[in-house]
């Protein structure tokens, strides 16, 4: 797109008013957007659909971003139907397992934890992207964060919802799982707070509450927008939107309190999230099982979680761009920025892995080294995907051109998450199958029941997301608008520089 076009559009937009029209600066000077300097493709003449300018009039912006919510294609129904079918078979498998017993899973002593727990850790890990990234970005005031927040936060909430199912699927007596809740009873049933599982139970619940709250509070102003739109359209969504929007008007007092509250939440979530995955890692590290009992597990898990989470955010962003034509909101620039973040995290993760490996290798304690040998012997291809994927990530993401290539990024981030799933599996399964007592060494294969349920969990996650997109605004509209409000362009010599107002 040429800068002339840009100026013209800005001028047009100014008529309809609103912050997106560049109300407070549009009159003064119409400047090309900074992204157009950055984005390599915009330098060329060829305009791509996703490079369209989002700075249309605000109504148009609302229309555009709310479009996925209000307009549904037949393909969508077909897609959710397929998801529903996958979920249904997983549910049947789960009922079957509950009815007959956990023997339906491929577990056996001493591999008491298997694919379920690996999947649980994976989902909990995935949930770390949203809130941590969004909190950090909020607190540091990174401007590029704005459009991606909602998608990332929703991912947190939903992957946690999925994750929270797995302990329930995993326990032997589901109908007695409430024993973990401190409910005073005649039978003096009381949880043992010394158990890392109990910490985990607390942490997951706290995190679930926190991230749901975070998601909802973030949604609040957008709900008001959607509400107004729904009422105007007479859409059925107005019923719940009215209630959920809590009567939000956008008064200055509301905004002010709201911003403060977001700040509190961002800080608290930032304290919760690492603790959650640390505690999840303690489920392993607190035991005396060789291979699990290491101090590095806390940070290693947290970094791994962010690694897989950020990758998943990138994957999702690209999917959203394509499916809902949101290329002008979620721009290549955002993917590029996330790619850089991912690069840093993958380096940190690899460093942690290396630390864990080299300490074990050097000390060569037989029971610990045995596990690495077994991993290499039993799961060589898995290790290739996991470690090779990580190396590839570091290599590829160092290239700007790679970061700008959406299919490449999509493939790479998927690869990263495959690797991270394998990593969780590698932590849970091989370590248990090569435990202290060599007589009880064993091998483990997930059963069909486990696979069904795990596949269904992925379907469930996508389903939740798909439903969410249809019920709530997927783009953080208020944040994007705020970004426009508080930023302006300042001419610096020949160039215009985008600056952001900070108080």
């Amino acid at each position: 797109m040429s800068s002339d076009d840009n100026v013209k559009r800005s001028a047009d937009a100014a008529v309809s008013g609103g912050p997106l029209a560049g109300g407070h600066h549009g009159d003064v000077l119409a400047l090309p957007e900074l992204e157009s300097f950055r984005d390599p493709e915009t330098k060329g003449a060829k305009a791509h659909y996703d490079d369209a300018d989002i700075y249309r009039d605000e109504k148009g912006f609302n229309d555009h971003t709310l479009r996925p919510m209000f307009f549904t294609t037949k393909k969508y129904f077909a897609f959710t139907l397929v998801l529903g079918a996958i979920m249904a078979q997983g549910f049947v498998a789960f009922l079957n397992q509950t009815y007959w017993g956990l023997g339906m899973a491929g577990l056996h002593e001493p591999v008491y934890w298997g694919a379920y727990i690996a999947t649980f850790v994976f989902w909990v890990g995935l949930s770390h992207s949203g809130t941590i990234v969004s909190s950090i970005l909020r607190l540091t005031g990174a401007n590029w964060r704005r459009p991606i927040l909602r998608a990332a936060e929703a991912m947190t909430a939903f992957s946690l919802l999925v994750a929270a199912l797995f302990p329930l699927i995993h326990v032997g007596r589901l109908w007695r799982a409430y024993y973990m809740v401190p409910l005073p009873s005649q039978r003096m049933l009381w949880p043992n707070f010394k158990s890392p599982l109990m910490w985990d139970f607390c942490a997951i619940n706290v995190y679930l509450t926190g991230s749901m709250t975070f998601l909802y509070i973030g949604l609040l102003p957008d709900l008001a927008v959607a509400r107004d739109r729904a009422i105007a359209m007479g859409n059925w969504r107005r019923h719940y939107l009215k209630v959920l929007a809590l009567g939000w008007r956008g008064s200055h007092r509301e905004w002010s309190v709201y911003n403060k509250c977001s700040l509190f939440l961002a800080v608290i979530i930032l304290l919760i999230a690492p603790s959650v995955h640390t505690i999840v890692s303690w489920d392993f590290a607190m035991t005396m099982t060789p291979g699990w009992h290491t101090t590095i597990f806390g940070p290693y898990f947290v970094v791994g979680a962010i690694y897989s989470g950020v990758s998943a955010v990138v994957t999702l962003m690209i999917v959203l761009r394509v499916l809902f034509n949101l290329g002008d909101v979620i721009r290549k620039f955002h993917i590029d920025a996330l790619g850089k973040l991912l690069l840093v995290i993958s380096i940190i993760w690899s460093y942690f892995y290396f630390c864990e490996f080299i300490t074990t290798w050097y000390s060569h304690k037989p029971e610990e080294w045995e596990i690495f040998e077994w991993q290499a012997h039993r799961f060589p291809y898995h290790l290739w995907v996991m470690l090779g994927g990580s190396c590839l990530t570091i290599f590829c993401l160092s290239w700007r051109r790679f970061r700008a290539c959406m299919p490449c990024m999509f493939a790479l981030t998927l690869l990263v998450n495959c690797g991270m799933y394998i990593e969780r599996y590698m932590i849970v399964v091989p370590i248990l199958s090569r435990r202290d007592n060599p007589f009880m060494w064993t091998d483990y294969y997930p059963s069909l029941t486990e696979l069904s349920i795990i596949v269904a969990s992925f379907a469930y996650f996508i389903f939740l997301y798909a439903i969410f997109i249809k019920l709530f605004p997927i783009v953080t509209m208020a944040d994007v608008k705020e970004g426009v409000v508080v930023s302006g362009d300042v001419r610096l010599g020949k160039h215009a520089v985008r600056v952001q107002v900070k108080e």
Partner: protein
Amino acid sequence: MRILKGSIKVKSFNYKEDNDYSWSMIIDLDRCNGCGACVIGCQAENNVATVGEEEVGKKRNMHWLRIERYIEGEYPHVKVRFLPMMCQHCAQAPCESVCPVYATYHNPEGLNVQVYNRCIGTRFCGNNCPYSVRYFNWFDSSFPEPVNNQLNPDVSVRERGVMEKCSMCMQRIRRGKDTAKDEGREVVDGDIQPACAQTCPTGAITFGNINDHESKVYKMAHSGRAISLFEEKGTHPAVKYLKGGTNDVIG
């Protein structure tokens, strides 16, 4: 401030010296011939389920007591060793503290107790047991008519989804103590024998109260041949093994 007392007393393997009883088991590896009588004795006493061929193939056999067999050396200098392995009733049991619902705890007599109807089946305890001696009921155990007539009424039949393990024949301990009480005396050494110790043809298994310094187990535990399995893990098991296989150590 009992609750603030740390793990002070448990440093020694006898759980609490100020208690009357601290049950302990000594297994003489020099005597064990791997015949497996204890395995069946335990199974008969404790209603341990048989799981069948298919489940055994998945390594889900439930024997609370198993005899581990290790092979050393190359033909013809081969040595086969037997190691009876059951719950070690560790004083600092790794399995206990990780249970989120107190389904397993340490009773004042030094036994690691599994409370079946508290257990929700997280299997964390099984993961944290270095000896791998906790068994999970993957399915409801089947005792079809008329096999159920053999079930020992003193021991509950476990539901699917709970952990189980050697209880050192808790029911026999209780019966022994009751008998002694009825007769107005203290429990004397040899009064109480778990099913495995009772049946062991070679007399490899000895059970007793290690707080009683006159007891056989006390003497054997201090014989110089006594070892604990995975001593370096600091679990302080109540089950001790007498090292065997050499002529150098006699005791």
